């Protein structure tokens, strides 16, 4: 598989991977607003999908042992090509093909120098929202933590 990494030519694989993680969690409103804000929109051609399918989610025996198949989850994905040449992939849990298509578009735009700042702004927006949500959940859970105390009964 010598050609496996040929497509991975976008600057900053780590940045792209993190961007895809965030785009998978973007709401349709966040994606459409960001798309509307782009001034010189390239044309978008579908390469694969958008389509919905299944991914078999694997767990580990005992939590950290060898893998086993837990059950499937619905996943929607899309691959698009921009008129400027970049190919982008979008994939996320659920059946929302429109979100998957937008995620693919923004993954493609991320590889274009002119558009990257706008995509990074979108990434920042999503990341900030996720941080707020996670923080709220963590604080709500923390409030249900048991504080044990010892009752002293009698004189000695």
């Amino acid at each position: 598989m010598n050609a496996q990494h040929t497509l991975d030519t976008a600057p900053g694989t780590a940045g792209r991977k993190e961007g895809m993680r965030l785009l998978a969690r973007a709401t349709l409103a966040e994606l459409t607003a960001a798309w509307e804000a782009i001034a010189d929109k390239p044309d978008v051609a579908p390469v694969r999908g958008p389509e919905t399918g299944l991914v078999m989610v694997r767990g580990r025996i005992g939590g950290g042992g060898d893998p086993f198949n837990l059950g499937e989850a619905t996943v929607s994905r899309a691959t698009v090509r921009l008129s400027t040449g970049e190919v982008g992939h979008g994939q996320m849990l659920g059946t929302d093909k429109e979100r998957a298509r937008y995620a693919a578009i923004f993954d493609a735009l991320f590889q274009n120098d002119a558009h990257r700042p706008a995509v990074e702004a979108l990434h920042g927006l999503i990341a900030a929202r996720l941080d707020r949500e996670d923080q709220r959940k963590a604080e709500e859970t923390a409030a249900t933590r048991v504080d044990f105390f010892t009752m002293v009964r009698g004189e000695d």
Partner: protein
Amino acid sequence: MYVAVKGGEAAIANAHRLLADRRRGDRSLPSITIEQVVEQLGLAVDRIMAEASVYDRSLAALAVRQARGDMIEAIFILRAYRTTLPRFGYSEPIDTAGMLVERRVSATYKDLPGGQLLGPTFDYTHRLLDPSLIGDEPVAAPAMKEPGEQAMRVSDILDGEGLIEGDGQMPGGHVAGDLTREPMEFPMPRDLRLQALARGDEGFLLALAYSTQRGYGRTHPFVGEVRIGEVEVELDLPELGFAVSLGTIRVTECQMVNQFKGSAKQPPQFTRGYGLVFGQSERKAMSMSLVDRALRTDEFSEDIVAPAQDQEFVISHADNVQATGFVEHLKLPHYVDFQAELDLVRRMRRDHEAARAGQANGMKEAAE
């Protein structure tokens, strides 16, 4: 000769129409939305996802609405739907240690790193019907507190002393099997058993788990840890050469710790049963972990003396879609089958009566 009988088309169409009417119920009441089911009947949705073995809240909510609240029918519908979808691949194994924990309790250690986090639990409620829920009274927002340290896994605490077996390892070179791809064969390795248990019927597993506690299969279990929360699902994309996150799912994990008095090969130690289930379902995860441990008879040279230890019995009957299909098919037309049975019974009856008459005659003759 085979004679096909047709008919009932109009009756079936009208029955479906009547079903739709009864499903909708009183038209003067607003119809329930999928979002309402997802938000307000979340644990029913979780159970459908777990037993259909498909993680998708909206589809599970749709299924239960379509099924008028019949859980097994809803599970069946969702299972049927999944067969229409292509498989994109296998995820990277989820990391439950890195979970965004919403609940974590341990029955073995009071003070453990991360603490006892009760989360949204029914435990310690009075189980009294709450009349305030008849109406739509406002509900207070949750309390908030600064989060503490990450909840470490209880099995790691015991592991430090070497008193507990490690996480499960399969023999070298073993590739995890997939029930959705290969027919079942027994004996079944532990990875496949866990897949079957994870989608098994909650009631069946609960009853089996209960049976182990009542003495049908010796166990002395403790909940090392139950944790509920969100974990990330990552999929490797061959076209990119790296794995990307697809989002998060909520799972429930149970580490059940069992005392083991040792064997010729192993010193006395704690052994473990493992439960992992889609959604929030402590009862299912705990039952699964008890049954998982009970089924590991060959690893610990234990005799099979109880139903919960018999993997062919447990695994073959855990799936409620299979079970309901076979039980419920009995109501379908068996007219020809039954006609044949009827003929057979009539013939046996004639033979029986003839034999009796012959016997009576014989006795009469003998008496004369």
